[in-house]
Each structure stands twice: as C-alpha cells, then as structure tokens.
C-alpha cells in the first residue's frame, strides 16, 4: 500500500491551518513591523468562541450551527485583536521595537491565563463538536469530513484576501501604508484605520483556522495557541514575512515537511533514529534554517530585504 498520498493530505490539512494563522503574523508585520506574538492566543480565543456557541445550543445540528460558530469565533478574535492593537500596541508605536515585542509576549500569557481562569472548565482540553461520517477517498488519500472545512476555507479566504488587497480602496491603502506609512499618511490614507484593519483581518483568519482546528482535532484547549502560533510564525518567516501568499505557501511547505518527515525520515539509511513523530519539529526547523540560508528573505519575500 502506498501511503504517500495520505501523508501529503495530512501535511496539506495541517499546512492550510498554519497558513491561515500565518497570514495574521505577516500582515501585521508587513504594515507595522511588529511580530504579534499574541496572535496564537487570538487563534485560541476564536476556538473558544466557536465552542461557546456549541455550548449554548448543544442540541442544534452541527451543520446549521457552523455558520454561527464561525461568525462568533470571528467576532471574539477580531474584538480581542483590535483591542490589543488599540490598548497594547498603539501607545507603543513610537517606542523601540523591543517594547511592543515584549508587550506581545506578555499579552499572550495574559490571554492564556484569562481563558484558563474564567472560561468554565477550561483548565483542561474541551471536546469540540464534530461531524459523523466516513472519510472520503480522493486520489488514494482518505480525507475526513471534518478536515474538509479547512481545505475549503483556506483557498476561499486567500482568494478573498487577494481581491481585497489588490482591488479595493482599503486594500490599496494597506499596500501604501506597508510601503511607506509617512507618505501614505500625507496622501490622505488613514493609517490608524489601516493598521486596525490589518489586525482585524489577521484575527478573522485565525478564528476561521480555529474552527477548522476544532473540527479536525475534536478538541480545543487554552494552550492550543502556543504551538500553533509558533508554527504559524515559522511558516510566515519561511514564506517571506510581509507577503500574504508567502504565509500560505510557507504554511503548506511546513505542514508537508512535518508529515513527510514523520513518514519517511526513518526510511533514509542511517536516519532511523531521527525519524518519526518526535523528530518532525526538528526537521521542520532544519528546513527553515536551510531556506533562510539560501533565501534570507523567505520563499516569496522581497520587500523585507530592503526595509529596516
């Protein structure tokens, strides 16, 4: 039996999730050069937002509930993301770069502990509703019904984002702000609004990823943003931080690398000790280092090299 298609599917699902979260890192970085380390927690809050809807209507059919869960997850995440920008980052906008960075790390701990403390029973992982049904076979890979969500949502989100950034007035304002905030301001772009918008879009994408994560894994927990956030940040750097398509590409490359390392590294002669699930993160980061050595700006990054 050939399990390559299955491993590719596993990697793609995981990668799409990383990619959607990575968009949030990359957009914020592209515009204000801030690495928003609380983004993983914004993702986590989206997951709890969606779970809340399920807890309110425990008997409603899941299919009917999904749109509501997405909407509420997005509302929660965007509210927290925008509030973080307004109250934690904006006052520090002129400050040395390390100040907002450390604020971000602090904020991430605060959000984690707040959920831990105040969300009912969140001190342990909470089960997330899932669809029943047999996996679908597709080109030799079995794809779970629950994983379809992320596979459908990710491309839709990326197309919508591409359209928004390139075709709409606000999107062009965003590009202008990213290129040169001062000049953009002089040209009449409301940069404050643009920056909040970047945070909000990133948060919304993270919330959608969180619903996908919940469906795929069947559980959410207050620590889920930690590892996913770190991986998504890695994906953003891998793809070229500042580039939205790079974020998605980086996510998918990272997801595939993890799945393939788990599946095949042990088969490489002499590597049998370094294969398997425990080493997948190591190989993912080896890949990151190699890519950064060859292309310091990341896979699709270009602007970053001449900024700073």
């Amino acid at each position: 039996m050939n399990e390559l298609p299955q491993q590719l599917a596993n990697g793609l699902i995981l990668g799409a999730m990383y990619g959607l979260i990575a968009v949030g890192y990359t957009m914020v970085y592209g515009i204000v050069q801030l690495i928003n380390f609380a983004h993983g927690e914004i993702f986590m809050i989206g997951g709890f937002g969606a779970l809340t809807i399920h807890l309110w209507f425990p008997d409603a059919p899941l299919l009917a509930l999904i749109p509501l869960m997405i909407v509420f997850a997005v509302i929660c995440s965007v509210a927290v993301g925008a509030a973080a920008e307004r109250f934690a980052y904006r006052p520090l906008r002129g400050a040395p770069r390390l100040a907002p960075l450390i604020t971000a790390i602090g904020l991430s701990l605060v959000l984690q502990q707040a959920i831990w403390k105040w969300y009912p029973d969140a001190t342990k992982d909470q089960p997330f509703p899932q669809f029943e049904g047999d996996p679908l076979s597709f080109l030799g890979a079995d794809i779970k019904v629950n994983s379809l969500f992320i596979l459908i949502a990710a491309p839709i989100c990326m197309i919508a984002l591409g359209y928004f950034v390139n075709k709409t007035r606000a999107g062009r304002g965003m590009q202008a702000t990213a290129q040169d905030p001062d000049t953009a301001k002089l040209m009449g772009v409301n940069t404050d609004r643009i920056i909040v918008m970047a945070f909000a879009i990133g948060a919304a994408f993270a919330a959608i990823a969180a619903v996908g994560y919940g469906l795929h894994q069947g559980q959410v927990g207050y620590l889920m943003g930690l590892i996913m956030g770190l991986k998504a940040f890695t994906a953003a750097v891998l793809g070229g931080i500042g580039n939205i398509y790079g974020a998605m590409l980086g996510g998918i490359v990272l997801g595939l690398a993890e799945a393939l390392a788990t599946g095949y590294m042990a088969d490489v002669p002499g590597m049998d000790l370094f294969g398997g699930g425990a080493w997948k993160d190591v190989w993912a980061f080896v890949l990151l280092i190699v890519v950064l050595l060859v292309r310091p700006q990341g896979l699709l990054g270009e602007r970053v090299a001449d900024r700073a």
Partner: protein
Amino acid sequence: MRNRSLLILTSVLTTGALTLTACGSRDDGNGDKGGDKTTVVIGVDSPTSGDLSALGLGIKNSADLAAKTANKEEYVKGIEFKIEALDDQAQPNIGQQNAAKFIGNKDVVGVVGPLNSSVSQSMQKPFNDAGLTQVSPANTGTELTQGDGWKTGDSKRQFKTFFRTATTDEIQGAFAANYLYNTAKIKSVFLIDDQKTYGAGLAASFKDTFTKLGGKIVGSDHVNPEDRDFNAVVTQVKKTGADAVYYGGEYPAAGPLSQQLKDAGNKIPLMGGDGIYSGDFIKLNKKAEGDLATSVGKPVEQLDSAKKFIADYKAAGYKDAYEAYGGSTYDATWSIIEAVKIAVEGNDGKLPEDARAKVLEAMAKVKFTGVTGDVSFDEFGDTTNTMMTAYQVEKGAWAPKFSEAVKPQS
C-alpha cells in the same frame, strides 16, 4: 540586517517565554481548628491545573478526605491533620519548587504525590536530603525506587524517603502485554510513546514481555506529549497493518491519537497504562469504544474496603471525580497518618521533636487494610500490593475486564 537579527532575537525570546509557564500555586488547607491539638501538615503535590488536572484534582481531594476522616475519628489522639496542596502543573521544575516549600514548612511531616514520574524525579533528592517522607499514589516509573539497574536485575534502593502505593511500570507493562497476547489474542502491535519517564518506561517494559511471549512489534514511533495532530503517525500505523496500538503516555495525547487512528479507518484498539485510564480520555475521544487500559489495584468499586471511601467521597461533595488514583491516594495519605500514629504512640502520645525522622522510620512498619487492599512497603519502598486490572471502554465508560496480582519476573 537589523530585521533579521530582530527575528532571531524574537525567536530566542519566544523560546524563553514558552518555558516560563506561569507559576501559580493554590494553597488551600481545610479549616484549622487549633485548640490543644498539635497540627501536623501533610503536603500534597499534584497537577491541579492544565491537561492532567482531572487526575490531579482527584488526588488532592482524596488526600483531603483521608485527613478529614482521621480528624473526625480522632485516629491519632492529640493530632490534627491538615492538608497543604500545591499545584505542580505536571512540570518537573515547578515540582521542585513545591518540594522546597514543603521542606521549608516545619509542620510538614510527609508529602503525598506527585502524579508524574518525571516530576517525582525532581523532588526525590531534595526530600531525601531533608529526610522528609514522600508517598506517591501514582508514580509507576520502575527506576524511581529500584534505579536504572532494574532491567538487568541489579535493583538498588534509590532514596530512603520515597515510597509509593502504585505498582511499577515493570509490572504494569508485563500485565498489559500478557492481557493483550493471551486474553485479547492480539499478536502484532504498533508501539508509540511520548518520551517522558512514564511513557517510555511503560512502552519498554510492554515491548519486553510482548516479544518474549511471541508477539510482534511491527513498528514503533515517538510523539511529543503536547502534539494533538497525529495523522502522520496514524498513516504509518495503517501501513504496517498492526492489530493494536500500545501507547505509553497520558490521555491528553492518547485521546486524539486514538480518535485519529479510527477516523483514518483503522479498526484496531489503542491500549495504554494508567495514564489513559481517565474519564477525560473518553470525553476527548469520540471513538474510544473498544480501547484498553491497565491500572493499578482492583477497581475501587469492586473492593469491599473501598465502599466506605466511595460513600465518604460522595458525602464530602467534591466537585471533581476521584479518578484513577483516588484509592491509592487515600492509602498513601493514610500510610503517613499511620506512621504519625506509630511515632506519636512511641513518644507517650506526643508528637516527637524530630517528627520527620520518626515518621520516616515508622513507614517501614506501616501495615493496614486500605482502599486498594493491604498496604505495606517492601525494601525498595514499593507497594507489596501488585494487583492490576485491565479495562475496556464499553458504552462510553471504562469497564473492568480482568484483575490479577502480578508476580514480578526476575
């Protein structure tokens, strides 16, 4: 250039931040009545927050119940027992800080806990140096009492202060392998562990016995205990066509692992040790039906000696279930109470000045019928009660299948 160094700095900072989990401890003792009684504190260390809190809270409450029962019955005249419970979040470094706190509090004569073998490793030495008795209700890592030499038959007592009411992984792994091979008739197994002291040790002793019996380990892998996506590993399992998966680790990872295993179309059970024998395993795993676990002791529900414990636990109105280690925790706490009694009675009914040393001395003489059966400790500090039970998930709950007192093979 500045950007890149910023990125590097950021990465370093995050890694640092990741290791700094918020340190919070929740002390809450039960009301101290004082009076003319001497107060003796029994420390309890378990993870009462985080992934493993279901088990940890069960430990805390059961220890509390033992102390309350002793106070109510005035089991030791003139002594009022008090529980000081600390949260170790299943982290060895926090466990070590807690150990220091217990040692610093002169009223603490013994400590019950922790849950995790890896946490215990960080606490054993400080307790040993301070001469403070530690009784773990849950640590099954064989080397904790017998040292790394146990595999080669060269067992040596590691710490004179460490005792446990849970049996060892050596016994548990062998029991699981026996059950799977002889009773469940499963001959080929895929082995997964989470690389922690407990998981890796359990998987190793399972593998030992299983291959000795003639079973085949068709593949093995390690995972990270924080991972929740195991689809890549599951694909590997499917490739080997194993008849079962044996997982050395705990339920937060085992739950999703088992579910993803079945989601991917593998109709095989997952088996684990006492680390997955928790109600939360079934809650976090929508396809747990048929999964197997072993746990120490007989199911408390089946033991006459446990009926009182269950009734008292219910009557005390704790919010959380007593879980897998309720009975063994009660016994662990009671063994310290018993040791205090011996020490007090040997000193004309008063708590001796060197209470810690006297309690430690008395531990070897402790012998009573507890919740899990007869409790006493052998020359390594291990329990002499090697009763094990295999459980299977049936209709959304763990159902006991088979109990046996295991003879250690050597």
